[in-house]
C-alpha cells in the first residue's frame, strides 16, 4: 500500500493517527495543530495580557513539562509578551518528588526560566513522608491535594506573579465532570469546566491544556524528546478518581471523542439559580487568611488535626466535630501547635509578600 499523505498538509507522509480527531497526519502538522489549538484556547478565553507575569506549575511530569515548552514557544511565536516562571511544590516524598524536581531543574536550564521551589516542610512543617508515617496511606491524597493548592498560591505570591497556569488536560477535566456528577458535588461541577478560576483574593489560575488530550501530550513530549519524569506517586492514587478514570478510559477506547464530548456537556450546563442560593458563601480563614468555606480553612483543619494527633479532622464529619469540641474546651490554643503563615493578598502592597523572592539560580 502506498504511504498515505498527511490529511492536513496533503504533502508529507502521514506518521501518526491523531487521538483527538482520528486523522492521519504528519509529525510537523501534529506539532503545529497541537500548539495552535492551545493558542486558540488562550486567545478565546483572553487568558493573558502583555506584560503579565505567569508562573507555570511544574511537577516535572509530562503535562507541566510540555506546558512549559509550549508556553515558551507560543509566547515567542505570537509575542504574548509574558514573563514566564516555573513554580514547583516539593511535597517531600522521598524517591518520587526529589527525583522529579531534578527534572524541573533541568527544564529550568533548558527553557531558561526562573524557578521557585516551595516545600510543604517550609510552609506546613510537615512533609508527605511524615504525614503518611503518621496517618498511613488512607486519605493521604486529601492532605496532599489541599496542601498543594494553597502552596501553589503562596508560591505564586512569593514570585509576585499575576497568573498560575497548570498542566490539567482534557482527560483530567472530563474525569472531574464525571466524578462530580457521581458524588453530587454540585459546587465543583459548576466550575470544573471553567478554563480560568479566580477568587477575590487568590491569583488567577488557568488550564491552557483544557482541550488537549493526554495521549497527544505524551505524543508531543515523545516526538519532541522532552525531558520529563514519568513515575506514578509512590503513595496510592485516589481510589475514587481511579474508578472514574478507568471508566473514562473505556469510553475513550469506545469512541475517542468522548473526552471532548464530556467537556462540551459540562460546559453546556450550569447550576440552577435556586440551588446556587443554598450554597455556602466563600469567606476567609480566620487563622491563615486563605479562602475558605468555613471559619477555618481545610488546610488549617487538616494541619491542626495532624498536630494534635487527630488525623480524621477535616476528613470525616465526626473527626471535624471532635476537633471542634477540643478547640471549644480550651481557653487558649497550645503554643506548640504549628500553623500556616498568614496569607497576604497578592499585590496588596509591594512589600507585603510572604517572603522575598528566592529563586534557584540557573547554574
Amino acid at each position, binding site marked *: 500500500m502506498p504511504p498515505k499523505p498527511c490529511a492536513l498538509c496533503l504533502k508529507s507522509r502521514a506518521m501518526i493517527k491523531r487521538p483527538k480527531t482520528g486523522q492521519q497526519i504528519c509529525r510537523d502538522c501534529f506539532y503545529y495543530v497541537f500548539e495552535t489549538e492551545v493558542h486558540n484556547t488562550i486567545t478565546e478565553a483572553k487568558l493573558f495580557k502583555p506584560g503579565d507575569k505567569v508562573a507555570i506549575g511544574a511537577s516535572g511530569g509530562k503535562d507541566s513539562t510540555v506546558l512549559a515548552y509550549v508556553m515558551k514557544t507560543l509566547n515567542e511565536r505570537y509575542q504574548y509578551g509574558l514573563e514566564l516562571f516555573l513554580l514547583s511544590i516539593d511535597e517531600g516524598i522521598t524517591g518520587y518528588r526529589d527525583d522529579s524536581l531534578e527534572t524541573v531543574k533541568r527544564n529550568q536550564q533548558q527553557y531558561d526560566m526562573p524557578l521557585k521551589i516551595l516545600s510543604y516542610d517550609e510552609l506546613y512543617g510537615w512533609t508527605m513522608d511524615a504525614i503518611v508515617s503518621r496517618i498511613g496511606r488512607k486519605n493521604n491524597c486529601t492532605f496532599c491535594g489541599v496542601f498543594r493548592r494553597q502552596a501553589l498560591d503562596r508560591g505564586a505570591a512569593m514570585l509576585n506573579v499575576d497568573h498560575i497556569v497548570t498542566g490539567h488536560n482534557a482527560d483530567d477535566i472530563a474525569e472531574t465532570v464525571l466524578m462530580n456528577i457521581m*458524588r453530587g458535588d454540585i459546587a465543583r461541577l459548576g466550575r470544573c469546566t471553567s478554563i480560568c478560576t479566580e477568587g477575590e483574593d487568590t491569583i488567577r489560575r488557568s488550564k491552557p491544556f483544557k482541550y488537549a488530550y493526554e495521549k497527544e501530550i505524551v505524543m508531543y513530549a515523545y516526538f519532541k524528546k522532552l525531558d520529563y519524569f514519568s513515575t506514578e506517586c509512590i503513595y496510592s492514587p485516589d481510589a475514587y478518581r481511579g474508578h472514574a478514570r478507568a471508566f473514562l478510559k473505556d469510553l475513550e*477506547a*469506545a469512541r*475517542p471523542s468522548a473526552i471532548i464530548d*464530556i467537556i*462540551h*456537556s459540562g460546559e453546556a450546563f450550569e447550576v440552577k439559580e435556586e440551588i446556587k442560593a443554598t450554597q455556602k458563601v466563600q469567606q476567609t480563614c480566620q487563622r491563615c487568611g486563605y479562602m475558605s468555606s468555613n471559619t477555618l480553612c481545610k488546610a488549617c483543619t487538616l494541619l491542626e488535626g495532624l498536630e494534635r494527633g487527630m488525623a480524621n479532622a477535616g476528613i470525616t464529619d465526626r473527626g471535624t466535630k471532635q476537633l471542634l469540641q477540643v478547640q471549644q474546651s480550651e481557653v487558649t490554643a497550645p503554643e506548640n501547635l504549628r500553623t500556616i503563615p498568614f496569607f497576604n493578598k497578592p499585590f496588596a502592597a509591594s512589600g507585603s509578600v510572604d517572603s522575598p523572592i528566592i529563586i534557584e539560580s540557573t547554574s
Partner: protein
Amino acid sequence: MSTSCGNPAVEEDALMMRKAKFDRSKQCVKCKERQGNIVIRHAVYCKPCFFPLIVARFRKTLEPVVNPKPDGPRKKGLKASGSLVIGFSGGVGSTVLLDLVAKSYFHAPSGDEENAKPRGGSAHPRNLTGKDSSIWKGIPAVCYIELSGVVPGSMDKIEEARKIVEKYSVQEGSFSFDFIPVRIEDAFNEAWWAELEGVDLSTAARSLGIDIADEFIPLSNLPSSSTATSTPLEALQNYLSSLPTQTAKESAIQTLTRMLLLYTAASRNASHLLLGTSLTTLSINLISGISQGSGFSVNEEAYEEWTHQPRSLGAESGGVPSKVRIVRPLRDVGSKECGFWMWWCHLNAVGKKRLASGKQSIVSLARDFIMGLEQDFPSTVSTIARTCAKVTPKQKSDTTCILCERPAQHDAQEWKARISIRSYCDEAFKDSGHPLPPHLNEFPQGKEIAHNGSSLLATKLCYACHTTFTSRSSRGNMTGKGGDHSISNVIPLPTWTLTTVESEILASRKLDRKDMRKQIQDFILDE
C-alpha cells in the same frame, strides 16, 4: 484471626465482617411491625408497605404534570388536555409502568387487601377507574416498538407484547388499551409517515440523503441503487451500518425509538407519553448522554415537552402545534424495586435480545458501569440523577435538532472547529490569520467546499447527533462503507427529518435563483 467457634475447618471468608446492607434492624421502617422483605437504599420495607411506597413515588412524579397548568398548593382533580400513550418496550420498567397505570387509573384496585377500600370513597374523582376514569381523553394506548429488524437473531415479539397488554382488558367494564405495534424500520417508511402525518414526500426528497463522510453533512442524492427498490428495513439497515461507531448505532436506535413513540403519540392527540425509565435507567441515560456530548439536553432525560408541528399541507393553514409531555413516572424507582414489583405481582416481561456490543459502545459501557454501581453503591445511582436535576442549560436554545427534535445550541460547530483543527482550508481557520506551519511555504489548496450553505445539515443538528454521524472509532476502518473519509458515504434520513428538510431547505432553495444560475451558467448561451 479469631476462630471463636472452635471449628478449624471454617472458611476464612465466613469470618469476614460484611458491611450491613441496611441501617438499623430488619424491621420495616414504615409500619415498624413486620419483618422486612426488601432493602431499598439501606432502608428495610415489608412486602405490604412496599406497594404503596412505589405507588406513591409513581404518582408523585406523574400527577403534578398531568394538568396543563400546575395546580399550585391546592390539588384539584386531574384533567389532561389530551389522550394517553404508554411507551412499552417489554422490559422490566415499562412492564411495571403499564401495571401501575392500569391499576392506578383504569382498573379495579390491585387486590391488595389493605388498599381495597379507596380513600375518599369510590365516587371520589381520584378513585374513578376503568372507562369512568376521565383524566385523559379518548382510549389510552400502548405503543410497542419492535426492534427485531436491528438486533441480529432476535424474534418478532409483537404478539407476545400484545398478549401482555390484553391482560389488562376488563370484560365487564369493556375497557382495553389500544395496542399499537410499530416497527423501528417505520422511521424510514413513507407509507407509515403518510398515514400518520398526512404528508407525501416529494420525489426530490425521497432521493435525498446525507453524506456523513463530510463534517458539514451536506445533503446529497442517494445512490440510485438504494432508492429504487429499497424497503424501509433496508433503508434502516443501510443507515445503521453506515454509522461510524457502535455507540452511534445504539444511540441512533434510541433516538429513532423515541421519535416513533412521539409521532405515534401526536397522531392520537396525546398530551402525555409515559415511559418506563427507572431511576437506574435514567442514570444510565444521563451518563451515556453526557459522554456523547448531550449535556445541553440533560434536563430532557428526566422530563421533556415536545412540540408537534403539523406537517400536512391542509394542516399548515389551520394546524396548531400541540405539546406532548414525556413523563418518566418511575424515575424515582430503582430497577431492583421494579424487579420486585414484577416478581410479587407475577408479571412477565417480553424476553428480548439486546445488541451485544460489550465494551465497544458508550451506551453499554454506561449501562454496565451503573449496574455495577447499583449493586455496590446504591446511593450513587440516585446521586447521579439528583445532581443532574440541579443543573440547567447555560444558554437559551434558539434551534431544534432536525433529527432528535430536542433543543440545540447554535454554536456547536464553531466550538468543534476551534478546539480541533481538522483542515487548513476551512473558512474559520483561514480567517484567523494563523502563521504558516514551519514546514510549509503555503497552505495547501484543498478542494473547495462547493456546498450550498443552506444544504449543510451540520448546523441544523444538535452536538450529540452531529457527533453520532461524524465521530470515528480509533480502531481501523470503522466508518462502515466510508472507511476512507475522502469517499462519500451517503445515508438515508428518517421521514420526519426529510419532511423538515423538504419544507425548510428545499423550499428555500427554490427561491435562490442566483445559486441555480451559478450551477448552470456554463451551459447558458449569451443572448
